[in-house]
């Protein structure tokens, strides 16, 4: 059982939702990323997504674009990020997923990347521009190295396609809350809850929701019907404001703590039922 599976199994037993922060590796320095992961874990994060910088992040909104640029400037290449994960593993067993674009992985070599990532202590991979149709060359080595290849589902994904994706999914499912790029949004779409409910009928895998969740209230709303809330841009903006300072750790940690508390509270009410729509 890898760390992702173990984490969600434990949370499910405790009827607790997972908080999944996303931060960009190397934003603003690799050392700070190490401290941020430990701080996030201490404040209630259950799994951390580490963004792998790419020069052309076409699925990211402005906040994460700037974070990825800061990571690039800090020299956060794949080999340095894997070294960072290896260092973290001597101090933390939190589940870690690398989140990024395909080209840096391809350049490193899919097989070599999976072998080195597995050895370093990475648990899962989420490659945003690698749909299931093209994922074969990464799926095989990932499986061989014990890495979960996490798949995305979107509001535009038709039901039949969702069913196919769910069958090849590992770890957890990542449901993209809105048709759009990553970023802070005022409110979550009203059809989110019924769509997650429809997805729930297709799988026993944990379902995480991301894109647009930035406040404790939004995280709590998601926690009432999903297994995990992924929060990215809100953390990227805090890191942008505070840089590599101790205040950054405190600000990021505080937001994570508030989110996790709000999510726990929301879940205490128990999951609600909703009517599934035709499309996911």
């Amino acid at each position: 059982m890898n760390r992702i599976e173990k984490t969600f199994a434990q949370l499910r037993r405790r009827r607790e939702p997972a908080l999944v922060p996303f931060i960009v590796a190397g934003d603003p320095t690799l050392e700070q990323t190490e401290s941020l992961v430990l701080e996030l874990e201490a404040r209630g994060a259950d799994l951390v997504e580490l963004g792998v910088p790419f020069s052309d992040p076409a699925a990211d909104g402005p906040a994460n674009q700037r974070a990825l640029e800061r990571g690039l400037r800090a020299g956060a290449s794949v080999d340095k990020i894997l070294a960072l994960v290896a260092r973290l593993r001597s101090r933390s067993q939190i589940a870690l997923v690398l989140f990024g674009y395909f080209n840096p992985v391809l350049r490193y070599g899919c097989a070599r990347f999976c072998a080195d990532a597995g050895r370093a202590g990475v648990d899962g991979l989420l490659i945003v521009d690698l749909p299931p149709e093209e994922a074969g060359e990464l799926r095989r080595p990932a499986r061989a190295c014990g890495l979960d290849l996490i798949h995305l589902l979107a509001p535009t994904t038709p039901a039949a396609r969702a069913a196919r994706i769910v069958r090849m999914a590992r770890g957890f499912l990542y449901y993209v809350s809105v048709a759009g790029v990553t970023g802070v949004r005022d409110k979550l779409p009203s059809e989110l809850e019924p769509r997650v409910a429809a997805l729930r009928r297709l799988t026993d895998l944990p379902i995480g929701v991301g894109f647009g969740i930035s406040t404790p209230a939004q995280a709590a709303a998601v926690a009432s019907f999903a297994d995990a809330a992924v929060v990215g841009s809100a953390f990227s903006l805090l890191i942008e404001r505070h840089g590599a300072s101790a205040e950054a750790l405190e600000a990021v940690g505080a937001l994570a703590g508030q989110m996790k508390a709000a999510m726990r509270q929301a879940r205490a009410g128990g999951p609600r039922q909703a009517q599934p729509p035709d499309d996911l």
Partner: protein
Amino acid sequence: MPRACPERSRRVPDSRGWFGAYGGRYVAETLMPALYELEQSYKQARRDPAFSAQLARYAADYVGRPTPLYFARNLTQRLGGAKIYLKREDLCHTGAHKVNNTLGQALLAVRMKKSRLTAETGAGQHGVAAATMAALFGLKCEIFMGRLDVERQALNVLRMKLLGARVNPVESGSKTLKDALNEALRDWIATVRDTYYLIGTVAGPHPYPLIVRDFQSVIGREARRQVLRRERRLPDFLVACVNGGSNAIGLFYPFLKDAAVKMVGVEAAGKGLDGPAHAATLVAGSVGVLHGNRTYLLQDEFGQIRETHSIAAGLDYPGVGPEHSYLKDIGRVQYTAVTDEQALKAVALLAETEGIISALESAHAVAYAAALAPSLGSERVIIVNLSGRGDKDMQTIAAHAGLTLDGAEPAAERATAG
């Protein structure tokens, strides 16, 4: 008389969008259903005689097709070798071949009942061609253009605005075409239900490389017919500039089965291939994934996309259409590169000998042909794709020659020139 096999019998791309080891669909899940929808709609449109008739009618009456295949007698005599023909895409409405594609895709957008076009542009030629079609068919039009290109190509920005498009300067990354493409994709992800993404070249995720190739192939179909009528034989060489590669594919594709026809794609060598200031993706790049397809790219050892340079703003994209990557690997097309200096000289040469001011992009093909022609006998035939006209480049050319737009030579320049 030689005959081409039907284009339909070619095997690439396969049903999943692969040209050998290149192509595919590397996009976010949100866009995947839209790509399938586009593929279905396009398949139906392609089979529909009414769609073909509509396309042909606008191509003739609005774009001005067929464009001439012009025998450049003076240029040929000056060079003393093979006969040089120019395929005059510079005479298309809006000034370049780009309109062949935007016309076809805009008709497809209308057919798909999309109310809004979104497009990226580098030099602004594709943006102008997209904005033109949006005006013609009453669609909203959103253009994304890197901040640096907005500054360099003010004339085209003005044209797009006059045509009713909204021009969004892109501030991210290198602030050029690749970043404009990222931003157009971001816009499309958020608006995919009512928006048609109109890509400007034979790149991007499947089915775009196929669709753009089909709409641009009119260039080669006409040229093939025209040269056979004029010369009673096929040409020995086809020469076209390549960046994304749509004008080159358009010319080459209908000749691919004609084994005796040699083809040369000319990339931008910028300030020279020994340094980083070029955009010669096929000549000097390596394979990767960008903007939805697997193809040759200019990238660093970590897979980050490199910044590029060419004096031709329409040649500085760091990728290339996947079919070109395939044609390079199978050896069907030879790819080479020409520097800024050589392209500038070719603009002057063509202007002097033929009274035609070429776009800097197309001048790369002219420069190669001018070097090739003297090495061939006078019975040989070269067709050069003159993909666009040079009006948009006057400022760049003037700056390079030390001229100002009012035509006066600065005193210092005059002194050194003497």
